[in-house]
């Protein structure tokens, strides 16, 4: 059976033009998707049933037993951590927030280790952004700063920027210019019209220099800034000013390098400055397919996008204190529920040492690095494959992911709702 218009549940592009061929409970062929999306859609070797750690071995348990274990663990904890959430649908995230409030825990999502700094900067100076469709149809200049879409968001260039047709561009491929700013010559830099190579840690200085040049203060800038010559800075500033519509897309090369949210703030302020001359926007290259959704859901329910501490009964937000890495590294939690992410594959060793010391329950369809730290793992349906739900694209557009086929696995929302109902009875 061929299923059309499938939404790809891999990266923040949420491509909604995928075609898959299904045989029974398996996707056997994928068209239109990139390599990353196709691999996820055809994924195999799921965990069969919930498992409980029993000494050095695993014991199979029922969903009821696993849900009871998680509920008891969270209710008895003094400071439980509920982390992950970017790899699941919005409806499940909603239940997660209710749960965190009920058990007075800390709820954090993966943006605290990816685009959290972008949100901190937006809270300081706002977000001059737009949807991907606007960029596709109007932008004649696209800047990728500290991001490498050819490897990380493979269809971003073809669907929305470099290779895409634009309604208001006569010959989009010729008219559109691409600038890449990075510390190394990436695959994306190879297709760029201008490549600005900067020294590691030099983003902030280069952004400040560009702001001053756009303001007409080029004479005060030193001959080179973080490895970039003043001539190139002036050339790039002119390209930006001469564009009819510019769009900046930045990645973790900007958010997770020295200075973090100050880099993003500086980039936003450069875009604000450029808007005195032409139309310019800036947006984040979000990673997980629904990491934007976890920020949306958290914000509409608690007022804050990630790192929310309910331990005093009200929402308190302070990234650096109430975020997962900081809490784990400081040993400040005594239980953890992990949903739709794999912290053991990404967190620093010190965090994992604490994760190994406390009870951990994970909801994930596959065995992963975090499985090694779990007391219980509950397999769930994969959103976008055998579960459906709302996800937010990297530009904030909500797209409902579809169920391609049905399985016996419960969705994240079903498992979490049952857990929450038990907690309400007991709590």
């Amino acid at each position: 059976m061929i299923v059309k218009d499938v939404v790809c549940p891999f990266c923040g592009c949420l491509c909604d033009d995928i075609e898959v061929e299904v045989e029974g409970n398996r996707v056997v062929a994928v068209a239109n998707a990139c390599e990353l999306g196709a691999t996820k859609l055809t994924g195999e070797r799921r965990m069969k049933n919930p498992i409980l750690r029993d000494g050095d071995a695993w014991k199979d348990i029922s969903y009821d037993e696993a849900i009871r274990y998680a509920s008891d663990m969270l209710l008895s904890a003094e400071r439980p951590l509920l982390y992950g959430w970017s790899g699941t649908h919005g409806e499940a995230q909603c239940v997660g927030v209710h749960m965190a409030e009920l058990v007075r825990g800390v709820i954090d999502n993966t943006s605290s280790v990816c685009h959290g700094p972008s949100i901190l900067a937006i809270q300081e100076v706002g977000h001059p952004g737009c949807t991907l469709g606007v960029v596709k149809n109007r932008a004649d200049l696209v800047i990728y700063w500290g991001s490498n879409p050819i490897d990380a968001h493979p269809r971003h260039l073809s669907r929305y920027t470099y290779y895409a047709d634009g309604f208001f561009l006569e010959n989009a491929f010729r008219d559109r210019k691409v600038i890449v700013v990075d510390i190394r010559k990436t695959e994306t830099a190879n297709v760029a019209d201008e490549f600005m190579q900067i020294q590691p840690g030099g983003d902030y200085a280069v952004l400040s220099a560009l702001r001053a040049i756009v303001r007409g203060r080029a004479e005060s800038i030193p001959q080179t800034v973080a490895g970039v010559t003043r001539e190139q800075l002036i050339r790039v500033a002119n390209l930006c000013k001469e564009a009819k519509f510019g769009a900046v897309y930045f990645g973790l090369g900007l958010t997770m390098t020295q200075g973090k949210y100050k880099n993003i703030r500086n980039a936003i302020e450069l875009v604000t400055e450029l808007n005195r001359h032409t139309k310019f926007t800036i947006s984040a290259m979000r990673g997980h397919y629904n990491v934007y959704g976890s920020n949306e859901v958290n914000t509409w329910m608690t007022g804050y996008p990630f790192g929310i501490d309910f331990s005093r009964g009200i929402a308190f937000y302070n990234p650096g204190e109430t975020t997962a890495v900081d809490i784990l590294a400081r040993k400040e939690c005594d239980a953890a529920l992990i949903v739709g992410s794999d912290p053991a594959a990404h967190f620093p060793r010190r965090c994992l040492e604490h994760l190994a010391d406390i009870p951990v329950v994970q909801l994930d369809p596959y065995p992963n690095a975090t499985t090694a730290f779990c007391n219980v793992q509950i397999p769930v349906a994969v959103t976008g494959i055998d579960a459906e739900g709302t996800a937010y694209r990297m530009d904030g557009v909500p797209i409902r992911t579809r169920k391609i086929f049905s399985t016996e696995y419960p969705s994240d929302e079903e498992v979490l709702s049952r857990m929450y109902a038990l907690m309400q009875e007991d709590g």
Partner: protein
Amino acid sequence: MKVTLTMKPAGGSFIPIEAESIIPKSFLSGTDDISVWRGNRELGLSEVFSISVEGKADRPEDVEVIIAGDETFRLKRVGEYMDGGKITVLGDIGMHCGNFMSGGTIEIQGNADGWLGREMAGGTILCRGDAANYCASGYRGGRKGMTGGTVEIFGRAGAFLAENVAGGTVIVHGDAGDMAGAEMRDGTLIVHGDCSRPVANMKGGSCYVFGTAHALIPTFKKIGTVRHEGRMLIHFIGDIANRGKGNLFVKDYRYLD
């Protein structure tokens, strides 16, 4: 009145204790009604501390609170909204010590964790050891950090020292970290040692670096040299990226070029 709070050992738990109730004013009406929080549990003060009270007082200025014990680094928000009196911490202190403080003195004999003196409006904080990140800064997304008073660090300070500072004086005798005085609006920041990327995007105020300013932001305009308290310092104004009119004085500087 002298109140001595000796922290009881927690038996290996690192869950922080939120103790915004520990300010001199609280102790004017006894210690029975004072509670602190460990995670999501509310505890009486005596469950966490051995308490001894000597003498009597009618106003906060006459109260001195002494905090002792090996695990005082777990205490958060001590001295929050304090308006008079004195708090002495014999060891290290946790995050948010002296938040929103408007008067009195806090003396920390060890190190202080993040957000020491956040959004402080008056009074004095002395830290004999090191201060972690965001000392004398503001809250996330806020436009103003510290607005008045004095913070003096005798050791080193972490990153984002005095971010958004809008008044008062911050003195660090050792080195400071990255982005010292970022977005500075007003007030005075003095770093006796080195620091990196000082006063990025500053709009006003004065910053003195008596050591080397590493990776100096390229958008500060050099004016000349000035003599200040016996030192020859190079004077910059900036940040010209934002029409800023702040003053940066450094003994020595390096660009990231």
